[in-house]
């Protein structure tokens, strides 16, 4: 073994992150936007000018002004503050759904891909069946069964995502398990679990992580839809989808109410997609310039 200083995990991440962001300005903007949104959302109690739930019936549906940057809603609540408080709820919901989909999908996909045979056949059929349901409809049905609410609806979305993630993990595992280093590890006496954990999993995960980033955008759109329908976040909690539901109810009186939360959803979904697409390009061997070893 050659003795050389170990850069450490953080060093590794930075060495990969900085050139990537430098080469793709859009990805850098998207990442900056998401970090800013998350920080503003977490610090909402300090940053937001008003409480997200305090009603003031003297100032309902007022136009934007210095005291209410984006005006107020039909209960006199400050729209800008609700938007800020809604950010961490929407981001958390997307992360939760994708994490659940990842946790169910990856082990199932890796097992099917690694062992093949009957296990693969059965899992393949189940994946195909679950993908045959329109995602939103299945999510609505599962939320209805589990009980309405943000966490339950995101569990439902996670379940809906899992077959897609499993399918990708399975395909990647099928490629990776035939690589020379897996054979080498087996020849050197590594057990199945060790091979799966140390060799197959890390090498099969790259495209899955790209897909998961793209699914964050889908999760955000589905979460806002479910909250709009009344199956997700429950009032008075400020989620962007729930704000749109409120705006819908008041559309004839004050159509301007719908713009702020809609634009917030659009920009955030766009940021997730931009990051995902940029990662896909950075990891695509067809596009990657061969670096000297």
């Amino acid at each position, binding site marked *: 073994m050659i003795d050389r200083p170990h850069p450490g995990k953080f060093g590794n991440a930075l060495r990969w992150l900085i050139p990537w962001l430098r080469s793709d300005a859009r990805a850098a903007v998207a990442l900056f936007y998401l970090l800013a949104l998350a920080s503003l959302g977490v610090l909402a109690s300090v940053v937001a000018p008003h409480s997200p739930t305090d009603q003031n019936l003297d100032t309902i549906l007022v136009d934007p002004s210095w005291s209410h940057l984006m005006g107020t809603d039909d209960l006199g609540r400050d729209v800008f503050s609700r938007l800020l408080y809604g950010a961490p709820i929407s981001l958390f919901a997307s992360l939760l759904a994708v994490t659940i989909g990842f946790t169910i999908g990856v082990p199932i996909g890796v097992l099917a891909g690694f062992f093949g045979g009957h296990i693969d056949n059965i899992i393949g*059929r*189940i994946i*195909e*069946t*679950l*993908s*045959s*349901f*329109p*995602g*939103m*409809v*299945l999510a*609505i*049905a*599962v*939320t*209805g*069964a*589990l*009980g*309405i609410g943000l966490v339950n609806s995101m569990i439902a979305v996670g379940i809906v995502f899992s077959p897609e993630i499993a399918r990708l993990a399975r395909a990647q595992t099928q490629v990776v398990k035939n690589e020379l280093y897996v054979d080498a590890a087996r020849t050197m006496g590594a057990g199945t679990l060790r091979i799966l954990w140390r060799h197959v999993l890390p090498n099969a995960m790259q495209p899955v992580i790209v897909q998961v980033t793209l699914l964050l*955008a889908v999760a955000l*759109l589905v979460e*806002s*839809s479910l909250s*709009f*329908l*009344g*199956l997700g976040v429950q009032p008075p909690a400020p989620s962007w989808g729930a704000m*749109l539901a409120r*705006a*819908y109810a008041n*559309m*004839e009186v004050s*159509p301007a109410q*719908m713009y702020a939360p*809609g634009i917030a*959803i*659009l*920009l955030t*979904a*766009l940021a997730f*997609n*931009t990051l995902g*697409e940029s990662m896909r390009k950075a990891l695509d061997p067809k596009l990657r310039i061969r670096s000297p070893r």
Partner: protein
Amino acid sequence: MTGSWLKWARRRALLVAPVILLATFIVFGLLELVPGDLAVTLAGEAPSPERIAEIRATYGFDKPFLVQYLNWLGNVVQGDLSRSLLSGEPVVNSILNRLPNTLIVIFGALTLSLAMGIPLGVAAAVRPGSRIDQALATAVSLGVALPSFWLAMILVSIFALGLNWFPATGMVRLSTSIPEAISHAVLPSVALSVAGAATIARQLRSALVEILSSQYVRTLRAKGLSPGAILWQHGLKNASVTLLTVIGLQVNRLFSATVVVEVVFAIPGMGGLVVPAALAKDFPVVQGVVLTMAILNVTINFIIDGLIAYLDPRVALS
């Protein structure tokens, strides 16, 4: 060619059957996700003991799960999806009443997506890297990230409530009045079509770029075939498989997105049926809608796969 296609179709149909059977199992199994005593939950608020007993009897909750499932499946096969717990109406009737409205909107959205997506994809592919290509790439990213129900709300506020060009809510049957039905379907179809058009443009572009830079297109060009003829006769013909694949995925997406957009437009369709049912735990309705949509989706995709295998013999032989 036809022989291998028939063989393919038979093999494929044999794969579809277990998927539909498994789908019925999953749909029935939804009830297992309900926490607590199912009969009490289904009976709603402050139920009488008779009501609980009635529900227990309807579902046969006293019997083992597999027996319950097989009984239910037996009824489903005979076209009996049980009755709504709220209205008492047979679920099959509700679905048959509402499905046409959903199908009109989905058909309109798919047509519009293709009408916008194909020209845009071709325009971007003809000169990759050009300004048009870059502008379209930006538009596509926005289109994919746009929440269709939000776009629906904007369309209602501008074109229905503001300009009064189209009705804001409801739906009219094609059999009642074709112009009325179309004018009701326009806004929901537009709201649903944007994301689809963006996806179609993106996929068609990358397929066409690959085809147009291939060896045989270079040969055609060297032989003096005009760029227009190459694009229309060879490019789009070879991209049609990609196009069909995207359409298949769009059908699935539209079945999802229409549910929310129908609520915005108060269209009495499948979405208007399933959302209140899920909120009120009216499970026979939820199960019926989910199963119907899954079967429709599988059938439509089976037909599309069949067309792909017909157009591309390599698929049929694999």
